[in-house]
């Protein structure tokens, strides 16, 4: 009987035997129950077998994975995986706010920074277009002459001696290939720099033109002593193509950031004024214009004449040149300002720098 059940469930009975057995099952409920139980237990057992096999397989896979993975995750890593997103957001927010703050502070500080003290050297960058135009016009008028190159920078300079020594600011002639000077009367000479004092921003130039025959008698003298506060001073210079007069007073006996080698003067100055002479009412040269303070009204600076004289006295020691014979007689004392300027203007030159 037992064997029959087994064969029935395994499906190895032939058709006749099978139908007979099924008929028997119908009539005998006990047999039917036994068959049922047998089926269940077989199923359960097979399930059990399969499940066990699967478990072993999974365990193998797992241990295989474990060995590949080199140890288990440490606690901090679990924590990190769990909170990485939040931390990422927090970090980016804080970074953003830090840099945002820095940036906006920078923005707010920017205009302030512009107002902080800054020294501006008054050398003029020549308007290229205008120069080019005049060159073209000249070219049309005078076709066989080579078109002159426009000057790159310009400043002001003035005569030291009647035999062709001049002075200007050394930042004007900085990096120059060649230097030309020209005055209101149209005299035009080629000069070269013979000596410079970078510390006091002064340069001595000498005219080397063969056509040069001397300036004639210089009308001003050089003041050795320091000038007093409030003294009326004036200058002539070339902040543009034409000569420009500027007047004011000596407002401080020290210059930019307490520089004692310079005066502060209240003359409106512009790029191109650098190297101009600063004279007092009696026609004494008291200084050389050098610069102004950016963003500050009426604060211009001039190197004191004492340092110019010191430079001149150094000249024969430092170079092979013979000592300079400075003018001794002042022709400007006691005459009106326009008369002074008329005498003066031929000795003030525009310094054109080519490079």
């Amino acid at each position, binding site marked *: 009987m*037992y*064997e029959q059940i087994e064969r029935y469930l395994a499906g190895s009975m032939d058709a006749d035997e099978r139908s007979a057995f099924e008929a028997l099952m119908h009539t005998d409920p006990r047999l039917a129950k036994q068959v*049922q*139980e*047998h*089926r*269940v*237990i*077989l*199923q*359960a*057992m*097979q*399930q*059990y*077998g399969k*499940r066990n096999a*699967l*478990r072993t*397989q*999974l*365990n193998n*896979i*797992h241990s*295989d*994975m474990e060995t590949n993975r080199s140890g*288990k*995750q440490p606690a901090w890593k*679990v924590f990190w*995986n*769990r909170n990485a997103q939040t931390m990422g957001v927090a970090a980016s927010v804080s970074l953003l706010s830090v840099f945002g703050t820095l940036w906006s502070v920078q923005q707010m500080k920017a205009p302030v920074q512009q107002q902080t003290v800054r020294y501006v050297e008054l050398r003029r960058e020549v308007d290229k277009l205008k120069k080019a135009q005049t060159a073209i016009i000249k070219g049309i008028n005078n076709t066989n002459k080579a078109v002159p190159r426009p000057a790159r920078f310009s400043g002001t300079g003035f005569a030291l001696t009647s035999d062709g020594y001049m002075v200007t600011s050394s930042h004007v002639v900085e990096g120059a290939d060649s230097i030309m000077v020209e005055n209101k009367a149209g005299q035009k000479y080629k000069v070269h720099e013979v000596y410079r004092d970078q510390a006091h921003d002064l340069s001595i130039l000498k005219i080397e033109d063969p056509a040069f025959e001397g300036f004639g008698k210089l009308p001003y003298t050089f003041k050795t002593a320091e000038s007093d506060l409030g003294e009326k001073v004036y200058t002539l210079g070339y902040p543009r193509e034409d000569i420009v007069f500027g007047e004011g007073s000596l407002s401080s006996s020290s210059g930019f950031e307490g520089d004692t080698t310079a005066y502060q003067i209240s003359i409106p100055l512009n790029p191109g004024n650098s190297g101009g002479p600063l004279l007092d009412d009696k026609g004494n040269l008291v200084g050389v214009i050098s610069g102004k303070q950016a963003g500050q009204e009426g604060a211009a600076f001039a190197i004191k004449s004492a340092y110019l004289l010191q430079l001149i006295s150094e000249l024969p020691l430092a170079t092979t040149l013979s000592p300079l014979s400075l003018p001794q007689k002042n022709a400007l004392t006691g005459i009106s300002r326009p008369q002074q300027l008329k005498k003066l203007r031929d000795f003030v030159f525009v310094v054109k720098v080519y490079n």
Partner: protein
Amino acid sequence: MKRGLYETDEAVIAGIRCGDDRALAHMYKLHFPMVSHLILSNNGTDDEAKDIYQEGVIVFYEKIKDNSLELSCQIKTYLYSVCRRLWLKKLAEKGRFAVKLDDAENYLMLEEDVPQHEENERQFGQMEVAMNQLGEPCRSLLEDYYIRTQSMQEITERFGYTNSDTAKNQKYKCLQRLKKIFFTNYKPEDTLL
């Protein structure tokens, strides 16, 4: 291991269906970190993660073998949902009733798959108990015959019976005992039959 073969879910399912161990291994390794993360970040340990995950994989595997799986989502989501449910149950058993999981993935509700799995699991547990109670050599004999499907001849030789009739007789006795133990504890539900 050829990774490229099992890049899509379909390939993995097809692989498992035709009994490819590498497909199963690939899938197992691919999704374990996700479940492990779920369990570790919800008061679980590594071992618990392993158990839960394996149970989840078994559910999935058996469904595929039965051809009863209607997968409307990725394998990943399915496994996550199953494991999530199993873990919730486990937590409830451990007495943590106020359970709210930190979820990192989407999940399905799975109203049917898990209960059915539990029923299977119950049967499986009973069978294991019964088998253990049965003792040797009955256990090995039954396993060899019914699970490893060895022939009566091989069994006769292996267990040193004089002839296959003795073996059959022995097997019959063992089966009777197993039935007795098994059915005293396990009441089959109608759904199983």
